[in-house]
């Protein structure tokens, strides 16, 4: 598997694949505004707006049923929004002169089971006016070169994910949209996908939007996040901004837990005691807790900042549908646009 997009000796078709930043299609910014969609009485997406910047991997996060897939399908003209629009450098998907050369999308991992991967890709080469040799190139790019002649019906879920990615890459698009691409990939495949997407965004300047219901799955891949809950925008901004919002906690152990808790509470600090005598202190630094214990002459055996704040923030942001359904649409994080 190669991550650099190069597949072999140079020939005419080779030029279609970016091998250096100069070959990369111009950066395309994606703007989504006011997207709203109901299915019958169920409101799936409500006035959803965000931007996806070129040169970065943007995570589109939210629990199952938050409206991620519906949003992606509306952006790509497959589902008709009740209101709102999505544009690629100002142009709606359906009006793009060469849609697959601008946007590649992985929405579906289903294929005609009797058709080989190579033939599947050739169908779309014909339809998009691309040379049939592109099929071989993208298959090599996603590491399916050896399985090109096999029926897609015999593919594992991980291989189908790769074939779907290959389909998206056919047109060498400036924008890549992926719906839950890690589903079915083994750890090695996830590692590979991570590097691949970061390469496309960081080295080649493409716009990458990747949806997931797990923050932990994309935490190491994405630079920016768009978080949705119950069909509304909950948070938009960089990972750094999301992290800075993490309210840390500190775990403290002492032979005198009761006295320590008393001292800290006396200073107006929130403390919770666990059964084993450990104390959890919210919203204060280890240094402050340490110095207060020292001042009170209390011996400490452990003083450890708790690091899993990000997952907690995500959970807090996306849990409780009612809470977010009732709240006004959250304002984007400062500096997000």
């Amino acid at each position, binding site marked *: 598997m190669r991550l650099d997009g190069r597949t072999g000796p140079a020939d005419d078709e080779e030029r279609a694949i970016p091998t250096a930043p100069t070959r990369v299609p111009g950066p395309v910014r994606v703007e989504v505004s006011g997207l709203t969609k109901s299915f019958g009485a169920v409101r799936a997406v409500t006035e959803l707006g965000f931007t996806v910047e070129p040169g970065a991997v943007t995570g589109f996060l939210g629990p199952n049923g938050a409206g991620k897939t519906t949003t992606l399908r509306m952006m790509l003209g497959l589902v008709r929004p009740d209101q709102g629009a999505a544009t690629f450098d100002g142009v709606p998907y359906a009006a793009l002169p060469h*849609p697959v050369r601008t*946007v590649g999308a992985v929405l579906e991992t289903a294929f*005609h089971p009797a058709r080989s991967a190579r*033939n599947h890709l050739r*169908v779309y080469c*014909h*339809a998009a*006016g691309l040379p049939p040799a592109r099929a071989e190139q993208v298959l090599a790019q996603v590491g399916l070169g050896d399985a090109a002649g096999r029926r897609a019906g015999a593919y594992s879920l991980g291989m189908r994910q790769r074939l779907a990615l290959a389909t998206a890459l056919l047109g060498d698009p400036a924008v890549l949209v992926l719906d839950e691409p890690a589903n079915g990939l083994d750890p090695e495949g996830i590692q590979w996908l991570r590097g691949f997407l970061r390469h496309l965004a960081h080295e080649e300047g493409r716009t990458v939007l990747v949806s997931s219901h797990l923050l932990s799955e994309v935490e190491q891949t994405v630079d920016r996040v768009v978080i949705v809950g119950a069909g509304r925008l909950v948070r938009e901004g960089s990972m750094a901004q999301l992290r800075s919002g993490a309210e840390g906690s500190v775990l403290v152990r002492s032979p005198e837990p009761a006295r320590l808790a008393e001292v800290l509470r006396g200073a107006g600090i929130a403390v919770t005691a666990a059964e084993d005598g450990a104390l959890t202190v919210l919203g204060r630094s280890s240094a402050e807790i340490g110095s207060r214990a020292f001042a009170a002459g209390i011996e400490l055996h452990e003083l450890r900042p708790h690091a899993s704040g990000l997952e907690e923030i995500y959970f807090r942001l996306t849990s409780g549908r009612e809470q977010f359904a009732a709240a006004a649409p959250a304002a984007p994080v400062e500096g997000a646009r």
Partner: protein
Amino acid sequence: MTGLVRAEWAKLFTTRVWIGLLLGVTALSVLSAVITTAFAGDPTVGVPPVGTPLYEQLALGSPSQAVVLMLVLGIIGTTQEYRHRTATPTFLTTPRRGRVIAAKLLAYALAAVPFAVAVTVVTDAVVAGYAGARGAVPELTGDNLRVVVTTALALVVYTVIGVGVGALVRNQVGAIVGGLVYVFVVEGLVRTFLGAVYTWLPGGALEALTVTFQGPDLLERWQGGLLLLGYGLGAALLGTLFAVRRDVS
């Protein structure tokens, strides 16, 4: 549009559905020709004897017994996109969905021509051999030739109707079962009990187009041909409208 038509051909010929259906259409047509010839001149069955114009047109018109399988070919052509969920990449590649349906209509109409020629050649060869053995080889001139050409044309038009029906119904099993029930049950009943209505149905139009010894209820040949073509284009137009409006999820 050339690329889209080629894409549809690639879809059609990279699975084996077309082989099965081509064999099926040929088998059904040949079977019908063999039965017609075997019972020719048998007063209890009512098939005219070999050598009469009526027998020859009946035997040479055998491919019209197999139009339903061409309907199925067209239905599969559109419904496979929904059944195997390839509608998503197809409409992502070509967001103007009307162009996809138009390409399918064109691709299947063109692909149906060699199918129809193959079925016609095999059927006519069997008729020539069998009827020759029973006394007289039908000549491919005049009314006989007209029957051969119009039945072949009917195979093509039914394929187009199938594409339109598939775009309309989307559910493959539903569309095929519905098509079979319609052709074999509904039209049969209407033909028996509501002759005036049958005249205007695809089956009546098909009969008007392909059969020369017309009953009083049928349209003229050219009218039947036009009506059949109208059904094909009507189904395609409706199918396009629906395909464009519906969400693909």
